[in-house]
């Protein structure tokens, strides 16, 4: 190589060196090599149930994206206008500007309808994600010390999202949302002492006035979202700080996290899952109609139709309102309306009680330890049964929120539906408690039976004396009576021969095998069972039986 060529080479921009140089320059300024590495090395345990919270998180991102688009067109004004848009059936009708601009969004903005529908579906999915994530956290005991604070943040997030959803679906000012607002006004009025003042202050005078939609709008697009973003950030930060809980299993203890580092595999799965949630919302937003406000018409105080149901997450409060008896307190010239109990007191209890639950449980079980290993629901029958009781209570209320539709579709008397709800609300939760408790004990017992006697093989053997017995495959070395000596380790006990490798491995390939299947392993008497006391040395975490 000549000298000239060497100089030319040096001057030429070396493209391959640019990323390295850039990163170097960045680190000179940000000093971020170590924190970045630590973040990428964060270990996450893997289980399908840990994905449920992500549904809520990704739906929230879709909500932010679609919601921002909607604000470009929606006009939160209650000024009365005459509709002149392209949806012919409503032409010439008097309506509020808010309703008119919602119609414009649906009919006169290219792709506006799918954005509106995606926003609504994403909201429903957001709430559903929060609820199933809470179930997971509750039933596995993930809320225990040290995670009580994150559980409380989660409960607050649920109610904030609830409020956000209600404010959102009240904005279009159609007949359905106007009726919802009117009920909300009645609920506020029912609060003792301050009810009328609160109502007239929120509505700026008599219902509906002209201020409520603009006020709900700023609540919906700024106040509550800001709180949601702040609390979600805190939720995530606490997760990173305290590290994720994990299921018990080989090598998993209270003092470690077993899983994979965040980058690349975990991140790939997470990113892919975001795309999938987004895809689901896009398909629902396009293919499944939701909240067709043009069919409801503008809000008029004298107009309502049967089957006026709120969104699903509000429906349980509608149900409680329908079931509550006509008990009004009138004393000393004052009134506490019946509406107060099912719509103010009940949600209040449902906010405070879950927040206190971690502390109540710790007190009753006298458990002050920090826990990072999850519990199988069956191993804590009392908690699982309490959860089932709460779900039964909730489901009765949810169904009662649509009891007029059920009565109509199944030709049942409406009054009978109401009474069924009232009786069911008192009877079903205790029943659910008892049934769940028994099921948990039964499952526990079966786990231990398999650990002692082994897995049923389905092979019937006739003994020389004529008796028939089923051959059991022991999970570990047995004692003189043929009983295994394994202890329950708080995790799945294999109960089928397939789980022990009795089945040949799957042959891969759609039309023809793409690889030779491995030889079927001979099934020896397993020297060591998949769940073995030898690999789970930490025992203080695992509890069984009654608590």
């Amino acid at each position, binding site marked *: 190589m000549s000298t000239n060529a060497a100089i030319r080479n040096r001057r030429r921009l070396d493209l391959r060196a640019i990323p390295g140089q850039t990163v170097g320059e960045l680190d000179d300024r940000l000093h971020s090599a170590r924190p970045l*590495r*630590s973040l990428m*090395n*964060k*270990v996450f345990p893997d289980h399908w149930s840990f994905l449920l919270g992500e549904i809520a998180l990704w739906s929230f991102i879709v909500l932010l994206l679609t919601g921002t688009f909607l604000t470009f067109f929606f006009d939160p004004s209650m000024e009365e206008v005459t509709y002149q848009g392209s*949806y*012919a059936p409503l032409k010439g009708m*008097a309506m509020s500007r808010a309703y008119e601009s919602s119609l414009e969004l649906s*009919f*006169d903005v290219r*792709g506006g309808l*799918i954005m509106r529908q995606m926003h609504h579906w994403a909201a429903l999915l957001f709430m559903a994600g929060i609820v199933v994530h809470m179930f997971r956290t509750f039933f596995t005991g993930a809320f225990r010390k040290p995670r009580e604070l994150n559980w409380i943040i989660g409960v607050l997030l649920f109610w904030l999202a609830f409020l956000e959803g209600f404010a959102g679906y009240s904005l279009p000012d159609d007949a359905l949302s106007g009726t919802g607002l*009117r*009920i909300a*006004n*009645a609920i506020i*009025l029912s609060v003792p*002492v301050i009810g009328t003042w609160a109502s*007239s*202050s929120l509505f700026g005078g008599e*219902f509906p006035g002209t201020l409520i939609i603009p006020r709900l709008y700023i609540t919906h697009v700024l106040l509550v979202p800001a709180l949601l973003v702040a609390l979600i950030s805190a939720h995530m930060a606490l997760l990173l700080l305290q590290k994720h809980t994990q299921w018990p299993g080989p*090598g998993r203890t209270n003092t*470690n*996290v*077993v899983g*994979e*580092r965040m980058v690349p*595999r*975990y991140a790939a*799965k997470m990113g*892919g899952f*975001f*795309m999938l949630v*987004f*895809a689901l919302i*896009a398909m*629902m937003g*396009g*293919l499944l109609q939701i909240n067709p406000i043009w069919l409801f018409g503008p809000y*008029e*105080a*004298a107009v*309502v139709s049967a089957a*006026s149901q709120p969104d699903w997450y509000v429906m349980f409060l*509608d149900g409680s309102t*329908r079931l*509550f*008896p006509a008990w*009004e307190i009138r004393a000393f*010239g*004052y*009134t*506490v*309306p*019946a*509406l107060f109990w*099912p719509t103010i007191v009940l949600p209040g209890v449902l906010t405070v009680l879950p927040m206190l639950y971690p502390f109540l449980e710790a007190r009753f079980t006298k458990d002050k330890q920090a826990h990072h290993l999850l519990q199988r629901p069956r191993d804590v029958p009392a908690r699982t049964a309490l959860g089932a009781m709460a779900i039964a209570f909730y489901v009765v209320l949810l169904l009662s929120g649509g009891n*007029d539709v059920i009565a109509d579709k199944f030709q049942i008397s409406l009054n009978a539906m*109401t009474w069924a709800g009232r009786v069911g609300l008192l009877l079903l939760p205790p029943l659910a408690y008892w049934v769940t408790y028994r099921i948990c004990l039964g499952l526990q017992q079966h786990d231990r039976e398999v650990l002692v006697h082994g897995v049923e093989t389905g092979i019937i053997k006739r003994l020389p004396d004529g008796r028939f017995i089923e051959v059991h495959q022991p999970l570990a070395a047995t004692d003189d009576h043929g009983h295994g000596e394994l202890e329950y380790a708080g995790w799945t006990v294999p109960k089928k021969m397939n789980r022990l490798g009795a089945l040949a491995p799957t042959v891969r390939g759609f039309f023809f095998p*793409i690889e030779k299947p491995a030889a079927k392993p001979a099934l020896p008497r397993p020297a060591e069972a998949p769940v073995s006391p030898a690999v789970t040395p930490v025992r203080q975490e695992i509890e069984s039986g009654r608590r």
Partner: protein
Amino acid sequence: MSTHTTSRPAAAGPTAASPAATGPADPATARFELVREGAHRDGVEIVHYEPRFPVPGTRAERRVERTIAFFFLLTALSATAFLAVFIWWPWQYEIGSTLSKLYTPLLGLTLGLTLAGLGIGVVIWGKKLLPHEVAVEKRHIGSSDPEDRRITAAAMVNIADETSIGRRPLLRRTLALSLLPVGGVAIAPLVGGLITDPHKSNMMLRTGWDPANNDGERVRLVREDMTPIRPEDISVGGQITVFPGIPEGRTNKHADSPTLLIHLRATDAERARANIGRIPINKDAMYGNFVAYSKICTHAGCPASLYEQQTNRLLCPCHQSQFDILDNAKPIFGPATRRLPMLPIELDSEGFFVAKSDYPIPVGPGFWERS
């Protein structure tokens, strides 16, 4: 199943000191040792590391690759389709079943496939191609290091000491005194402007039927199109929603005023009259066989508008309260606790229905100040 741990970095072993200095032939192996060391410094041990396909280029590996490529191609295709639909498909609303009705469904389908292809591809990539590993990270449980605790506590106590708040009671007390109303200062401007007196202009009691809205004249009952009503306009057993015949009487400005005017059958009217006689405020409210009840449910304020002609019941579709029209609109089922208020009606000199006066009791849901 083979359980070869750490197959790529074959030369394992404790290489904490300077992994780069050992100088192995394979740069990839050397780099992985660095990764392992980095993880170690972050309290993470990679105890199992296994490439999905130790021998590159097998049929199985190419198959996974093709599958992922298929999903990426699906994304490319449907993203293009999405753009084409978005730009060229007719989208403006037309009456009847036209192509434009498919605009939103097609957008949803193509957008969904676009994102799903990408998502599935990336997930398969992660699950099937990226190396499988088991890493164990140390978890620090319980409180901070006792020493850290002590030092931080000392620092905080020191700060308190530096402010010397403890030995300056005058400052402490005056500060507390000054802070006392500050909370009010923060809240007052925010809330104060919002507060509206609910008892101003008797808002909770007055409706559009108050003659004061009509220059002291009795207010006419009008239909939705603001035309007045004569008794013969309503067939026997029929009912109609009426509004106060004043400017903006049928708009949401008078959301408490919608009223149901019902023409009872003669036999039903007899019973209704007998029952109405028992309630002093309703005594003179009926006109002939006509009754007028507030349409605003006394439970939550929905319009109680489903009239069952045969049973003379009025049902509110929101929470299924039922009211007996023949007995002063008494609640007979559901959560409502109070009767629907009755509007006293008569005919004016031209033979049109008018309200004798406003409702004698508050309309709509209950509230605290109501006796």
